[in-house]
């Protein structure tokens, strides 16, 4: 056998070793382990880190539950999903974590949910050449989320990128694609569970360490499943075609439409609160590079 050949990207290996994680349930597939320990125990946060890494690309988030149809036949049993799942060996995070400073800020050039700092950080990083791609959560007319790759600020004029959508978004599966495409680096904005997922990916796989250069975390108390929250909002008289902003302020869910506002206590949404959010204590996205949120800032930010 010939030994390592030179490539343009460094040394190539012809023999290598990969560590596999321990199975909590022996003699069961890794996905079965994930299912038993995280999904069935209602710990799953729908961060979709497992979806992003699964080599067979068959883990899906359907009907608001992470699942792997026919995993008995299709699972390759590589263990990548349990290696990256932030809730598999869950070590709850809380508090503020280590920080350099906290401050109130507002972007001069962008409009966003609050101070548009989420948007500003990503575009500044692109302008500085730190990253060549940023991931944003976009939405359609019906407020269904989709993930958008931004590569320059000219794209922003056309798209309603900023602003909070209180619905889960498939950010991490897109992050993997962005990492594969990116030459320089990728920036991502996400909820605390997603930030933990990104850190797990970085811990386990060098390609994510090398490419994900900026991780912005959003303050988050809860997120919702589209089907459930949209049904509820329609019942409350929200017309999606007129909806321009959703927010949670002082314990109230506020849906601002072009002609009126619908307000109600967030506590009314308790029945549809995702189980994964119930166990989470990480409000500030402790593991992020920068955390952004509006709690504690004076009005106007």
């Amino acid at each position, binding site marked *: 056998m010939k030994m390592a050949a030179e490539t343009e990207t460094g040394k190539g290996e*012809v*023999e290598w070793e990969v560590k596999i994680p321990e199975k909590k349930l022996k003699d069961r597939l890794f996905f079965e382990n994930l299912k038993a320990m995280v999904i069935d125990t209602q710990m799953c946060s729908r961060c979709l880190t497992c979806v992003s890494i699964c080599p067979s690309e068959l883990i899906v988030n359907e009907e608001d539950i992470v699942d792997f149809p026919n995993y008995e036949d299709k699972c390759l049993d*590589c263990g990548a999903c349990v290696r990256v799942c932030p809730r598999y060996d869950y070590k709850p995070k809380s508090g503020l974590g280590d920080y350099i400073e906290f401050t109130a800020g507002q972007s001069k050039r962008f409009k966003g949910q609050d101070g548009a700092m989420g948007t500003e950080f990503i575009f500044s990083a692109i302008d500085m050449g730190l990253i060549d791609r940023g991931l944003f959560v976009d939405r359609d007319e019906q407020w269904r989320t989709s993930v958008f790759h931004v590569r320059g600020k000219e794209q922003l004029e056309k798209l309603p990128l900023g602003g909070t959508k209180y619905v889960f978004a498939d950010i991490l599966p897109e992050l993997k694609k962005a990492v594969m495409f990116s030459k320089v680096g990728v920036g991502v904005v996400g909820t605390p569970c997603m930030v933990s997922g990104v850190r797990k990916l970085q811990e386990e796989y060098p*390609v994510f360490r090398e490419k994900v250069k900026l991780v912005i975390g959003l303050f988050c108390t809860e997120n919702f499943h589209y089907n459930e929250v949209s049904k509820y909002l329609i019942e409350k008289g929200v017309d999606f075609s007129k909806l321009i902003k959703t927010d949670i302020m002082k314990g109230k869910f506020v849906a601002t439409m072009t002609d009126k506002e619908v307000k109600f206590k967030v506590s009314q949404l308790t029945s549809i609160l995702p189980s994964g959010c119930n166990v989470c204590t990480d409000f500030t996205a402790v593991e992020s590079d920068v955390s952004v949120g509006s709690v504690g800032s004076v009005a106007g930010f």
Partner: protein
Amino acid sequence: MKKVGTPEYDLSDKLKYHVSALSTAAKEMALPLNITTHYPRERKRQPDCFRGYMLFDPERCISCFQCSFVCPANAIWMKDAPSGRYYPTVDYGKCIFCHFCIDSCPGGALRTTKIHDVAYKTMDEMFTSTEEMIEPPEIIREDVGVVDYVIDKEDLSLKRTKEKDELIVDVEPSQGVPMVSVCVDRGSCLACKVCDMICESGAVSSVVDEAAMTVKMAIDAEKCTGCGLCVKECSMQILRLVRK
């Protein structure tokens, strides 16, 4: 300044050139020299490596897509066959007969022929399906002789023989540039073993060591045909083809 005038010949020169011209005329009258091939009654003999119509052997195809990737004219489409495999189809409306596809085929599934005169009535017909590429097309041959071009000294002459040139040739598949697959980021390997499962030549191996909780991955450079299947399938994109 020197003025260039008409050349001056003496009588002996004039006689010499006249005789030469008359004899050429006489020779052409008796035995005309022609340098065109009387196709289709005769065919020019083509070299075995002639870049002509292509034939395909599904038995040797490993669905690695190399042919369609390399095609500079975008003439090759891979289509799914009932076997679940993907096989090439060629649009001869686009093909520029560079035969990069043949040269890049690691299994020698594509090969050349000396057929260069396939006629089509419509553009759609030029889109050749995999099935049509397995057997040579039907050829109506009217040729009764073959023409060889012979270059002797400064002149080109034709040599005509009463034989038929074999259009279907048996050429060794091209070896191309020997390539081998390597892993460029072992740390990002998931050990999903897809590369091992997809490899047709048994070059990739993955051995699970339960006790040590590791998977030993290896690519045998001797066995690797450089087809690039594993490179294409690797979900982490950490495999590359490099020169052997």
